[in-house]
Structure formats: structure tokens, C-alpha cells
């Protein structure tokens, strides 16, 4: 069988191209065997192990031992699965094979448990909170004049949503310029002082959020005598988020390739122009992600808000105008009230908060998506820190 035309010349002239022709007598092409894929025997064994475990678990929990209830069934199922993995491993090989199979089952089981926990968290929030979510007034009204046990057709969380947005805006207005400015200072200016700043900022990321709240409470409210307000809550969130955002931006700016800076400086740009036109645009997706993840963290924090904002039942848009509610605080106080409908409202508010955080998270992922072969943000965030470039 030859793939080439029959009239192959003995000494082909330069530039001749021979096209392959179809050989009708050739056997059909064999598909390549995939080396990485498990063989049918292996996959049947893997499924069979867990099918056997299911049967055993039913036998043990329903017929042999007094272990009623779904949790026990799941536990026994998993233990039986481990046992069956060991048995099937022993059928094939020695102790090494047994260990490999049991470890594989353990690892997979652990990951499945974590996934189940995440699904149960999100599912339970929506399961308990779906009813208020169906009423449009839940998003359009506040709780003024609405009792905790009133039906879901009255009242809503508009005041909490507005409060969360106002407080987050204050916190972002503080942390965005200061956080990114500090990161620029630490990476682009450098020097001994920058090292001190970096050490302190990294240390302050350990500050528990409640202590940040207590700081603003004792300074702003007790010592300076201002009332509890959205401004105080925004400041508390800002104090909490500032080290987080400064540190994350610092990590992002550090991995901007030094060659870009040097190229810009070599072309005669001043250092300011280099930062503004080269470093910051290069790091923009990373900076946006760092900021958004910081906001998501701030949106979910309850403890600083609990100490500083107070709780109003009506819409307050002016941050200096007395007490102001927010979503986490609304959830906390309603859960604490112990009333059935109030709890359901809390779950619905938790669903709203979850959706808000999820939306921020998705935006952050989209911004961080690698474009045209650029490494992803994760890779850049956690990449080994390159040696510091000092200009």
C-alpha cells in the first residue's frame, strides 16, 4: 500500500508536492487506544464497589443494627465503600493496591462531603427563604410599621439593601484610593519606609473584624460623641477592609513584569507616567478582582456593623442621619428574635445577600479571566514573588 501517487519520480524535482490519494483497499483506520482512560473493567469495578456498598449499607442500617435515619445511612454507606475498595484492591494486588484504593475513596469522599456542605448551605437558605422572595414588596418596601409576625405581603428589606450599599460605598471611597495608593507606594517607590508600611499592613490583616468595629465604636461614638450612623459603619468596614485590599493590590502590582517598567523608563517616560500608563493598566484586572473580593468580604461582615450602625426599620439614605440598617445586621437581629416569620425573612435576606456576593464574585472572575494567553489571576496572585524591582 502506498499513499503516494504511482508515478513517483526517482529524483523528484524541487518544489513538487505529492498529495495523498485514497487507497480503497486499505483497512479502516483503527482508533487509537487512550492510555489515560480507565479500562472498562476498572470503571465497572469502581461503580460496582459503590453499588455493593449501597447494598451493604442498606443491610446494615435497616436490617442488622439499630441505626435509623439518613445521616447514619450515609456514614455507613461511606464506611462500607471504603471496605469494598479495600476488598477489590486486595483482589487485584497487595497492600499497596489496597492503600491506593482506600486513599482514593477517602479523598473523593472528603471532597464530596465539602461539596454537599456547600450545596446544603445554599440550598437551605433558599429553601427557608423562598416564600418572602416571591413577593415584590420584599424588595420594594421597608419594615417601618411592620411587626415581626406580620405576613410576607407587608414589609421588606429595601432599607437593609440601601444601607448595605451606602455603607459599602463609604468603605470603598476610603479604601480604594488609600489601598491602591499604598500598594503603589510599596511597590513603585520602595525604600526603608515602604518596608515598615508593608510590615504593619500585613500585620493588620490579622485584625479580627469585631476589633475593628470596637475601635470605631470607642473612638467615633464613645470618645467623639457622634451618634451611631451609617458613616460609622462605613468607617468600621473601611478600617477592616483597608489592610486586606492594600495587601492584595500589593501582591498584584508586584507581579507586573519588571521588563515593562524598564522599557517604559528607557523610552524616557517619567516614573509617574510609567506607573499611570504602564503599571496600573497592566494590573487593572487584578486590581479590580482584589477590590471586588474585598467588597464581597465587607458586604458579609456583620460584627463591625453590629457595633456601629444601630438598626433602623425604615430607609435611611443619608449616612450621617442616625441609625441605619444593613443586610447582615437585619439577618442577625431577625434570627435572634426567634419568631417564625422573622426567621423566614432573615433567610430571605440571607438569600439576597448571597446573590449580591455571588454577583460580585462572578464579576471578579470575569475580570480576572485570562485574555490571550495571559496567566489567570490566581496564577498571578499566588505566583512566586519575583525579586523586587527598584528603579
Amino acid at each position, binding site marked *: 500500500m502506498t499513499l503516494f501517487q504511482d508515478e513517483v519520480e526517482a529524483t523528484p524535482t524541487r518544489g513538487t508536492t505529492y498529495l495523498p490519494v485514497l487507497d480503497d483497499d486499505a483497512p479502516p483506520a483503527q482508533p487509537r487506544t487512550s492510555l489515560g482512560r480507565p479500562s472498562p473493567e476498572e470503571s465497572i469495578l469502581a461503580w460496582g464497589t459503590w453499588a455493593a456498598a449501597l447494598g451493604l449499607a442498606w443491610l446494615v442500617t435497616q436490617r442488622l443494627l439499630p441505626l435509623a435515619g439518613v445521616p447514619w445511612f450515609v456514614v455507613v454507606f461511606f464506611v462500607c465503600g471504603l471496605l469494598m475498595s479495600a476488598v477489590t484492591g486486595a483482589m487485584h494486588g497487595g497492600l499497596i493496591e489496597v492503600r491506593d484504593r482506600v486513599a482514593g475513596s477517602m479523598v*473523593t469522599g472528603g471532597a464530596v462531603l465539602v461539596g454537599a456542605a456547600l450545596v446544603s448551605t445554599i440550598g437551605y437558605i433558599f429553601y427557608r427563604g423562598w416564600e418572602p422572595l416571591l413577593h415584590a414588596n420584599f424588595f420594594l418596601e421597608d419594615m417601618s410599621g411592620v411587626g415581626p409576625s406580620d405576613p410576607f405581603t407587608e414589609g421588606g428589606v429595601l432599607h437593609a439593601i440601601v444601607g448595605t450599599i451606602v455603607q459599602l460605598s463609604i468603605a470603598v471611597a476610603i479604601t480604594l484610593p488609600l489601598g491602591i495608593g499604598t500598594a503603589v507606594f510599596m511597590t513603585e517607590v520602595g525604600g526603608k519606609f515602604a518596608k515598615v508600611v508593608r510590615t504593619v499592613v500585613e500585620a493588620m490583616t*490579622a485584625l479580627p473584624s469585631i476589633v475593628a468595629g470596637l475601635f470605631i465604636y470607642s473612638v467615633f461614638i464613645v470618645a467623639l460623641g457622634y451618634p451611631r450612623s451609617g458613616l460609622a459603619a462605613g468607617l468600621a468596614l473601611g478600617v477592616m477592609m483597608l489592610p486586606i485590599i492594600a495587601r492584595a493590590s500589593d501582591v498584584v502590582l508586584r507581579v507586573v513584569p519588571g521588563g515593562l517598567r524598564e522599557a517604559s523608563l528607557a523610552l524616557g517616560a517619567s516614573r509617574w507616567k510609567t506607573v499611570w500608563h504602564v503599571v496600573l493598566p497592566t494590573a487593572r484586572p487584578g486590581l479590580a478582582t482584589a477590590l471586588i473580593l474585598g467588597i464581597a468580604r465587607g458586604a458579609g461582615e456583620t460584627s463591625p456593623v453590629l457595633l456601629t450602625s444601630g438598626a433602623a426599620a425604615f430607609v435611611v439614605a443619608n449616612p450621617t442621619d442616625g441609625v441605619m440598617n444593613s443586610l447582615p445586621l437585619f439577618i442577625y437581629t431577625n434570627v435572634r428574635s426567634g419568631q417564625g416569620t422573622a426567621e423566614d425573612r432573615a433567610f430571605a435576606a440571607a438569600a439576597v445577600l448571597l446573590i449580591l456576593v455571588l454577583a460580585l464574585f462572578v464579576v471578579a472572575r470575569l475580570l480576572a479571566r485570562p485574555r490571550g494567553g495571559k496567566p489567570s489571576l490566581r496564577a498571578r496572585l499566588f505566583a512566586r514573588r519575583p525579586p523586587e524591582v527598584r528603579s
Partner: protein
Amino acid sequence: MTTLPVHDDRGNLAVTPRKISRKATGADAVFEWSSRAIGASVLVITGGVGLFLGWQGYPTIKRYGFSFFTEEQWLPDEDRIGIAGVLAGTFSVAFVAMVIAFPLALLTALYISEYAPAGAKSFLVSMVDLMAAVPSIVYGIWGYFLIMPYAAELARWLESNAGWLPFLQVRGADPDAAYWDASRYYSSAFCAGIAVSMMVMPMACAVMRQVFSQTPPGEKEAALALGATRWGMIRSVVLPFGRGGIIGGTMLALGRALGETIAVALILSVAFEVKWNLLETGSSTISSLIANRFGEASASQLSALLAAGFVLFLITLLVNTAAAVIVNRSRSGAGTDA
């Protein structure tokens, strides 16, 4: 056109060499000094918080002396204030959280980096990040409403089967009674620890997975080529390589677990006592103490709360710094370009 250097009559260069200076001029100087000012202001703000806490807490520590660290009760009305009870509670909640979170984080990180199908990997990584972004109050109400009954059941089972361990005993409750008193098992450090473990697990998992994914592929392939099974390869290459990341990630999670407030304040019923009975109802942590007591606090009590907060901050700072040192020192994440 080429400009030739100008010489004077004696053949010396007429122009003096320009002065070379690294000092910024013009817009650069403005940029440098303004960014320095921003850095200084952030230093003042963040450093100020730490200094303020220490300064405000000092009178309390001076007033109560060493008994501030040994007194269990928090009774400002009787002038008995101490953090021994809440400190023990803080550590027992964090202990339970880490006992649950550490194996789960390790297994999940191993699954994502070594076992998961290649197509699902980035999705799973996003899921772990999403878990880290879920607000703590959400885990708090999840633990409070959904998990607590099961946790109480598990606590009773643990006590009746492993009650000879001192920290699994529940005083005043009989696990084998025909009608068991569930309220003795509710609102315990164990229940709070479960909710906190969900918060800190994704954090530890993300660090571990990151370190595992940096394992040099050459070493992994070498192990497989020598006939190691997948688990053999993990045990001999991935785990030793990632040891620093495992320890560091766990300690970062521990730092977060120590400072967690709202889920703990929601679940725990308050009790000031040094107790190691993890399954028994009632305990208190430093952060839940602050959340519960700041409202009615007078100036001196506020100072005491600030002192307690300062101690908490010092502990988390210590844990986080140790974690950073361990991660940076270990082989993980270094020299992995190959």
C-alpha cells in the same frame, strides 16, 4: 548631522558632565511624595488601631494585674473581670473548627489537584473560592438551624461511646437515658466549631491546593515511572513538597477561626468558665464577649473589652506571622519554575 563635542582653546571639553542624581524632580517628585504621604496615612490608620487598642487596654491590665488573665468570670458589677474563661472558649471553638476543617481541607485540596478530571478543575477551584466568599452570617444560620440538631445527636453518640475521654463528657446529662435532654447538647463549643469550620475550611483548602499544584511535575512523573500508585506518588512527592503549605494554610485558617464572631455569638449560649467539655452547652469567646457586652459597657468596661480585643489581636497576629514564616521558608512555592 552629527554634533561634535565643543572644545575650548586648550582642547578641554567645554561642557561639564551633567550631575547624575536619583532624586526625582518635577512631576515625579510630586508623585513620590504624594504616594509616600498615602503610605504614611495608611500606616497611621492601621498602626493607630493597634496602638490605640494597647493604649486603651493598658489601664485595665494595670488595674487587674495578672488576675486579668486568670479570672474566669466577666462580672463588671462585682469588679471581677478576667479573660481566662473566654480565652479557653476561644481556643476550644477554634480547636473543634480545626479538627473538622483540617482533614476536609486537605482531602479537598488533594482531590482538586490530583484526582479531579482536568475539565472540572477550574470549576472546583471557583467553588472553593465561592465558599470562602459566602458571608459568615450565612454559615452561622446554617449551623444554627440545620446542623445543630444533628450535631447534638452526634454529641450524644460521642459521649455515650467515647465518654471516658474527659473533653467529651457532658456534666449533668445521661446519654443513655430513655428520654435524652437535648438542650444540654445544644449551643455548645462543638456546634459553634462546626459552623466556624465551614468558614475557615475554604481558606486552608485554597492555600494547600495552590501549593500542591506547584509540585514539580518532573518529580511526580518520576515517582509514577518508578511504579508508584497514585497514592504512593502523593505520599512520597506531593505531601512532602506541600508540607509548608499544609501547615501555613492551617495556621491561617486558625487565625481566622480565633477571631470569628457572628456565627459564634449566634450559636453559643453565654457561660464564663474554663471548661474543656466541648460537647456541653454554654461557652464564650473573646469576640462573642465583645459582641454581647459592648452595648451596656461603661468607659472602664469598654477599656476592659478593648484589652480583651487587644489580646485576641495579638494571638491572631502571632498565628498569622508564624503561618507566613512557615509558608515562605518551606520549599513549597520556591524554585518551582522548572
